[in-house]
């Protein structure tokens, strides 16, 4: 092991395993996770060349190979629990997506939740046995977030008892669904349902797209890959165009809405039911934000402990770059953020699990708040993690830019989560809608509950909020900082709500007023999410029994909260929550915390417990032997396949001869 890393690990003030247990949710789960990961790592079938050296087609092929293998191996090992499957796949895939991803998530899940018993009986065995491969085709070339704008049509023909599917325009071509281009032979297609001459809105249909046996597209189906992307090379995101393509009536998912043989439409009971899946998927993105940022932090922090550069003290050897304040200031707040997001992800997952029972019983009362909260947190965490991963890469200097650092892959794979499953700005505005609604309720004398209950205090605080708050914020107390964030959120929600009201008084339409206030509304949502995150982080501290671990987590929590203040000083100053003098103290305290965290930095990323093969980074290797392995890696580059590149004979030599 590299001597610097060994020294770092010896100097830690806490045992990383204990923190790993907290992150995993208990020592048993850590043990099981490692066991499952070990299955993958020690299995020679899963070995392959570094994907960065392969063409896109080859990467896709490798991904299909792995996906197919995973189906088989999961059975072999008897792994069936969703969380355990997730661990297995995570180790196997590293940062890359799998072309079967949507088969198991959206395709199977939708069939499980939105079909009648008869449909379940027909389709689920085929899906679970991977006799068919499916995907979920919602987004169209011209339509994403605004679902009602989708143009694909499904027109019911009572004569043959079939639906006729059509893509009437270029903009209506299904575009982006993963696994659609080359892999799937079925898709769940979302289309506007027309029956008896009327449009009944969006419904889901099971559509076969490729011939079983030959895999050729069916007549009336045009399907293909949408071409190269920023990342997701292994995924065949696809397009799908349908021309008078007929499917039997039974292929409409009919658990809720139904079309009877004669074409009579039967309405669904509630449209809130589909929220459940969205909440679930978005909660996964919050977890993924934590996960991806943790990996980037692991790489950047280990490398910063190995890399030496310049001079801190005249005459002394070059110091580890992690000793520079500017480097600490880049990385430690991100490390704290990764921990914060991890606890938020766990909270949402638990809450979802708790109330999903209620949802199945038909009790939807807690769903709107959870839905609003996950929308905002999905946006907040993915934006922050996305920028954070980039900062980690930059903090690795030139070598971060090489694909061998692993961070480019983490980044390009993670960055679309700012857009998919709800574009982030739109998500923030959904949360804002809930906040404004809650504010309006409070203004009209009702009380609100849950994470927005601080709005109840607004009327009480109005006497003189500034001075009360300014005196009471204690910068060393996480609980007091939660109060400061709460005051900021309340202030911004109120400001946005009032601006909206003012706009409404000026203009005719509600939509216009909303649009004219949307910049404020996004800020209010961000402040609300920020408050929730600080609150959850602070609450987590009380659950930690080991004193050494609690001490280091408390430092991280303080750093997270104080950095948030120092990057948003305007809000805290303008709202009168903090004074100039306190802001100066915040900045000073941040620097002290950087120094306090410095000795534990490597141990704190070790606690994330990423195996090297999962981390996929030469810079972030556990043993820190960076330079030797960079050289080994580079030698495998495709440009090095021959010593003299063919372009010498083709271009260079003739040119030199001519000039």
């Amino acid at each position: 092991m590299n001597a610097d890393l060994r020294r770092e690990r010896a100097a830690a003030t806490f045992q990383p395993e204990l923190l790993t247990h907290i992150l995993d949710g208990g020592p048993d789960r850590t043990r099981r996770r490692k066991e499952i990961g070990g299955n993958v790592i020690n299995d020679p079938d899963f070995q392959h060349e570094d994907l960065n050296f392969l063409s896109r087609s080859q990467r896709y092929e490798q991904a299909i190979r792995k996906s197919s293998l995973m189906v088989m191996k999961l059975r072999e090992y008897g792994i069936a629990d969703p969380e355990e499957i997730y661990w297995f796949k995570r180790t196997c895939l590293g940062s890359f997506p799998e072309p079967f991803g949507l088969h198991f998530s959206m395709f199977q899940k939708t069939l499980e939740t939105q079909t009648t018993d008869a449909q379940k009986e027909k389709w689920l065995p085929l899906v679970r046995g991977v006799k068919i491969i499916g995907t979920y085709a919602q987004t169209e070339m011209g339509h994403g977030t605004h679902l009602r704008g989708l143009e694909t049509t499904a027109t019911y023909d009572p004569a043959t008892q079939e639906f006729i599917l059509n893509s009437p325009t270029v903009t209506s071509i299904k575009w982006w669904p993963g696994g659609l281009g080359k892999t799937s032979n079925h898709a769940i297609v979302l289309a506007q349902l027309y029956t008896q001459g009327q449009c009944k809105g969006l419904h889901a249909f099971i559509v076969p797209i490729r011939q079983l046996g030959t895999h050729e597209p069916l007549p009336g189906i045009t399907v293909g890959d949408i071409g190269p992307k920023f990342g997701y090379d292994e995924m065949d995101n696809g397009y799908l165009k349908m021309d008078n393509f007929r499917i039997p009536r039974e292929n409409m998912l009919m658990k809720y809405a139904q079309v009877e043989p004669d074409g009579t439409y039967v309405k669904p009971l509630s449209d809130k039911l589909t929220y459940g899946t969205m909440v679930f998927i978005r909660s996964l993105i919050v977890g993924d934000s934590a996960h991806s940022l943790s990996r980037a932090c692991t790489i950047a922090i280990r490398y910063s402990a190995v890399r030496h550069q310049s001079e801190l003290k005249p005459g002394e050897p070059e110091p580890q770059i992690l000793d520079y304040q500017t480097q600490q200031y880049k990385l430690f707040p991100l490390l704290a953020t990764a921990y914060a997001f991890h606890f938020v992800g766990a909270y949402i997952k638990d809450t979802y699990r708790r109330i999903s029972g209620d949802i199945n019983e038909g009790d939807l009362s807690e769903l709107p708040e959870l839905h609003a909260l996950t929308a905002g947190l999905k946006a907040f965490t993915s934006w922050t993690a996305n920028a954070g991963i980039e900062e980690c890469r930059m903090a690795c200097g030139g070598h971060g830019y090489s694909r061998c650092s692993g961070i480019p892959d983490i980044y390009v794979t993670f960055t679309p989560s700012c857009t998919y499953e709800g574009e982030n700005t739109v998500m923030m505005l959904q949360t804002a809608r809930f906040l404004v609604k809650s504010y309006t309720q409070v203004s009209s004398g009702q009380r609100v509950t849950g994470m927005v209950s601080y709005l109840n205090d607004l009327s009480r605080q109005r006497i003189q909020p500034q001075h009360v708050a300014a005196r009471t914020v204690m910068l060393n107390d996480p609980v007091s900082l939660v109060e400061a964030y709460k005051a900021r959120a309340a202030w911004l929600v109120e400001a946005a709500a009032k601006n909206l009201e003012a706009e409404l008084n000026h203009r005719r339409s509600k939509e216009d007023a909303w649009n004219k206030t949307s910049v404020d509304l996004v800020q209010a949502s961000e402040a609300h999410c920020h408050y929730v995150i600080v609150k959850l982080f602070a609450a987590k501290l009380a659950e930690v029994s080991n004193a050494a671990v609690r001490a280091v987590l408390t430092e991280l929590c303080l750093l997270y909260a104080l950095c948030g203040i120092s990057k948003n000083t305007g809000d805290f100053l303008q709202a009168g929550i903090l004074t100039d003098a306190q802001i100066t103290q915040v900045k000073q305290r941040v620097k002290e915390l950087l120094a306090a965290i410095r000795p534990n930095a490597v141990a704190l990323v070790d606690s994330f417990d990423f195996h090297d093969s999962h981390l996929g980074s030469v810079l972030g290797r556990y043993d820190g032997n960076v330079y030797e392995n960079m050289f080994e890696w580079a030698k495998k580059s495709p440009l090095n396949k021959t010593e003299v590149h063919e372009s010498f004979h083709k271009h260079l030599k003739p040119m030199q001869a001519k000039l």
Partner: protein
Amino acid sequence: MALLETRKYLQGSALGGVNPDLASERQTPSFSVEKLTALLDGGEENTRIRRAVVEAIESDPVFSRENQYFQSQNEKYEAAVRKAVHLQKKMHEMGWTENGPEFKYIYRALSGEIAFLLHTIFMRSISVLGSDKQIAKWIPLAMQYQLIGSYAQTELGHGTYLQGLETTAVFDITTQEFILNTPQISAMKWWPGDMGRSATHTVVFAQLYVQGKCHGVHPFIVQIRSLQDHSLCPGITAGDIGPKMSFEHIDNGYLMLQNVRVPRENMLSKFCEVQPDGTYVRRGSQQMNYLTMTAVRVALISHEAVTPLMKACTIAIRYSVVRRQSKLKPGEEEAKILDFQTQQEKLLPHLAAAYAFHFISNYLQDLFNRGYEEIQRENFSMLPELHAFSSGFKAIVTQYCASAVEVCLWACGGHGYSLLSGLPSLCTRILASCIYEGENTILFLQTARFLIKCFMAASAGHPVPPSVTYLAAVKPGKCPAKNKFDFLSPDIYTQAYRHAAVRLISSTAAKLQVLIQSGVKKHDAWNECTVQLVQAVKAHCLYITVKNFAETVERLETKGGIQKIMKHLCDLFALHGIFSNSGVFLYDGHISGAQMDMVTASYLDLLAVIRKDAVPLVDAFDFTDKTLNSALGSYDGQVYQRLYEWARKSPTNTQTNPAYEKYLKPLLHKKLSKL
């Protein structure tokens, strides 16, 4: 947009005429687009020359970038070499020369996708660091491409800190040669462009040892590949460093040297020389060295940061008036996404920034030209200021533009993520600019040293360079704005920026002093203050940017509506900066809470004003479709058709799918054991 309408467009050019949603944006610009283009080019004559160069390059199929997004690393490299070779012929054919007015537009026309850029650096380093004799020997060979050069400075373990380089060059007096060695793995040269596959020669920076004494880092010309068959020379290990985020067309390389001998004459010896008897001689001022760095940094601000941001804005803004999403008013058709305030707030401030940085880049170029003239007259007094300026602005502009390009990418939603949008390649490429030619944090701190020094000098009443005299006249004062319209006065916002810069610089200087007086060692005190110092430098650079923008606007002609629209952009740039960093201005109460609300109100008003001219403002950048190479950003706005056509050309669609026969079929037919 219905397919029927689409067919209607198909009557015009390849894909049809201009999308009506884009055409309507161009109906009533408030200014003359052509005049603005001329302003950006620095005169109508330049516009004419630029267009001619672009036309000549783009009409030549060898320079086509049509397949760019579908190529492998090997193919990209080969194409870059092919283009570089062909360019020599083209220049000869067109009568373009390296000193001619056309030269600077060639790179733009090629979008930088060309090999042998390091060959130029190789030549420049010889011209600057070599003796007359060395220049006479090497430059003609390089000009004739009898050799291909590279520039090997960075090592695997060492980047910014030159003194830390480990490669050694030991003088052997008996044979009159230098013996070059890579003593350990971290000393391997790593990253130099054109070195992995192309270069035959390179300038190697190594620690010079003469008679056991180390004289520090010096440059040596080393041949690495045979001029006959391109094989590696004895003692040389070299190759490509592997795939990167971008720059796949460049063969960034590694180089290991084992007892490689070069003649004494191969050490570049304008400033230092080892004489035959081993005597080490130093002569002249090395400050010229700084000048090269400064020149490179000033040039890259425009080429590698501002131009890509202009392209990204063009793509994102055109797409945002073609893309419709959700309804703003019930019953109406879905709205153009640029009509959403949140979309305006993502894109328009960055459009304003592209203009702001274009003008600051001009300002720096002028400053550099003046400095260069002075230096020719052996007057080096402007050098520290020039160096500080180019460092700080290189850092702030590349950092700002890199994140702005990313914002443009996200602002295009899912389609921005497709390579066919052109945005990912702009994004990954500009990200590198934050690191090369000086890592940004380190550059900020170099400028900080200059500012702190100037601040101390100014406080003590000593003279300081003109750009920092403002530090001497510290006026506490409050912002006098009474309503939101007052914030449209350049005096008011420039003053706010100046106030913030002075406050941050003076408070950091004070902090440093306090630490040093309390017994903390100087270097520890410096490290202790670096986070604040970086913030202070940014505030300084932004102040200069705003001030320069406002002064530029004042000088513009009022004809053609140019001055008016530029004034709006200047206001927007300045107010966006205050709005998004409100804490800096609220602190110490220069701007009050009530005034900050006025700033916000004015800022949001401006978004709506500039929204109307957004498309003409990007049209004025005058990028051809081939330059943009974007399915989303073309002039005609036929976004969806183009996206579909281009996707169908992807090899994943034109070639058979090997994964089906090999893996999918056995899986579906349950012959898993064969996998």
